[in-house]
């Protein structure tokens, strides 16, 4: 019996560890801080390296660069063909800037000095034209590139449009779904809810082929769709993309169903007694109460929509593409110029990262709220 209770000596014995616990807590804090700092550095490094590499010419890429490289200026003895092949020099722009007739043929083995001599140009002018050529080659080439009458900015705009409408409609439709399902009291509500939950276990690769087939059948009903480059074709493709984005997910349904179920039913009843319709109730009373779940859905879906690649890659014609398929095809074209590739990849990342950093507190809050639902 006596062993069951702590003897006075034993109580004394337990004291030192209590003090030790304090020391351990400090130790833990230091340990945790070190790990957090190391992990943060490792996590941020790829972003930084990507940025730096967008300024490193392919020629110098086998050296370690942790800061903007000190790149030599273009030598006047550089062959023009080299500049065109490895640095994607825009010959047309070069000729216009130098006052060389556009029809003039410049042999690729000609050096810059030869060109200056031939067309009676000032060497200093050429040097000025090529100032920073190597350093900014990636960015210049990226922003100048036009593939299938498609530029970086157009692709970015299209991405913004698709993302905006997808988010807006997805929120509206998901709230409506959540309101219709709220409570999950009836069998039909439960069935619908369970069907939405299936989304989580249906891999995208399983349905992408038949889904595309389905859209092809629908498109074939409209002869206008088969006119290449028509506005009808392009808008139909973008609508397909938006429909795929707004179709509702397990997460969106869970978030709003549980949020709306948590709002007291009395609120709806009193609104009804005051003569509000269900739509009025939804718009004027429910909507303002749903700020947290809306933020939650936005911060989870925004990166997903902005970074969508497979569906736009499959559904959109190249002249109609969003940002990532554009980057992918541009990258394919410049497969030897790594500077352009990394500039393109970095450029595709920047808009969202800026948004993220500006609204970071919403992201943290929303993700944690969403994860609890999940």
């Amino acid at each position: 019996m006596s062993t069951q209770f702590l003897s006075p000596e034993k109580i004394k014995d337990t004291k030192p560890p209590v003090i030790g616990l304090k020391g351990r807590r400090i130790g833990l804090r230091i340990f945790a801080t070190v790990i957090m700092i190391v992990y943060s550095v490792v996590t941020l490094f790829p972003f930084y390296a990507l940025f730096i590499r967008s300024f490193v010419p392919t020629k110098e890429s086998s050296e370690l660069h942790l800061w903007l490289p000190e790149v030599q200026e273009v030598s006047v003895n550089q062959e023009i063909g080299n500049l065109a092949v490895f640095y994607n020099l825009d010959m047309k722009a070069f000729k216009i800037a130098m006052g060389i007739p556009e029809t003039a043929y410049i042999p690729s083995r000609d050096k810059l000095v030869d060109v200056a001599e031939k067309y009676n140009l000032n060497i200093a002018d050429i040097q000025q034209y090529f100032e920073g050529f190597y350093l900014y080659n990636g960015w210049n080439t990226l922003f100048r590139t036009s593939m299938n009458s498609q530029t970086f900015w157009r692709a970015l705009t299209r991405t913004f449009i698709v993302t905006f409408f997808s988010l807006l409609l997805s929120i509206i439709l998901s709230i409506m779904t959540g309101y219709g399902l709220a409570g999950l009291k009836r069998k039909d509500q439960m069935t619908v809810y369970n069907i939405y939950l299936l989304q989580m276990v249906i891999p995208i690769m399983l349905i992408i082929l038949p889904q595309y087939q389905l859209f092809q059948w629908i498109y074939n009903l409209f002869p206008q769709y088969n006119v290449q480059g028509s506005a009808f074709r392009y808008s139909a493709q973008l609508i397909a993309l938006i429909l795929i984005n707004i179709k509702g997910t397990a997460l969106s349904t869970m978030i709003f169903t549980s949020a709306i179920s948590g709002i007291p039913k009395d609120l709806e009843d009193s609104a009804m007694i005051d003569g509000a319709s269900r739509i009025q109730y939804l718009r004027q009373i429910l909507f303002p109460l749903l700020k947290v779940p809306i933020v939650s859905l936005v911060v989870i879906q925004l990166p997903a929509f902005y970074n969508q690649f497979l569906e736009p890659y499959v559904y959109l014609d190249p002249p109609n593409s969003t940002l990532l398929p554009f980057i992918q095809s541009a990258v394919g074209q410049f497969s030897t110029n790594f500077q352009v590739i990394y500039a393109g990849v970095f450029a595709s990342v920047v808009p969202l990262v800026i948004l993220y950093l500006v609204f970071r507190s919403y992201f943290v809050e929303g993700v944690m709220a969403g994860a609890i639902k999940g």
Partner: protein
Amino acid sequence: MEVPANLPTVQPIKPAKPKLSKMQRSRIRSDWAFIAPQFIIFVVLTIVPLFVAIPILFTDKAQFNDPQVNPVGWKNFTAVFTERSVQDDYLPALQKTVIFVLLNYTTIYIFGLSLALLMYEVGFKGGFFTIVYMPLMLSGLATGYAAVMLFAQETGTGNLLLMKAGIIKEQINIYSATGTAFILPLMVGWRYAGYNMAIFLSGLLSIPTETIEASVVDGASYWQRLFRIYFPQMLPSFILATTMCLIGSFSVFDELVALGATYVNPEAKLLSIIFFTYGFQIDRLAMGMTLALETFVPLMLLGILLQRLQRRLQY
């Protein structure tokens, strides 16, 4: 609280029932008006495709707008056991995918779980969360290109840095079999670290603090607390993370495209790439659909099972 016996017993008003059910019926109707718009889109784009595919599976349909389609019976289904060309594509891809899924699954714990435990012990740090979650802003495509940037032979920044620090002796080659197999899960794990951390952290935060305090008072060591208190109560989080990882990493695609899987790099040809090329590039649509179905239906059933289990544990 005895009910007085002399209280007049009120008979339930008979006509009330149909009236209520009428209200209920109108409620159901209006509920469906709210549910229908998204539900129709969902069913048409997610559920219907599964059934649309079925008749195509028994044909030799090559393209989406193939004018001539012949029935071939069960040939597509058995091809993976009999047809050499399909086996040569499918089996190596299956092997690579399974390795990828397993390694990717371990990264959930290496990154997500350990970071969540760290955050839980020292308290929630918003700034650190912001950084850990940041890679999720990267697209899969960018993640793949970041892998190339860091670990391409000769030019990889990560390679050059690790060489200089003396951590590695030989450069890692992202385009080699082992390079792809190990670096890719690491990059994907890094990208999803914040997401998995959020899942595990919310699991940890849902544990009643009484049980933890009790274990501390009883003198349980940290490991005992971990395995006896935390993990059993976090089971729903584990199952959720497992489901997400299983379904997500079997259809990993964007990262592979960045590694050149659709054309030059055979090491990055995982199953998703096989299905994609069969459907969109080499005119074996029906075969691609069948292979996808054969691969994913068992996975889907497993996913449903896990989901059921998770919900049972949660409520």
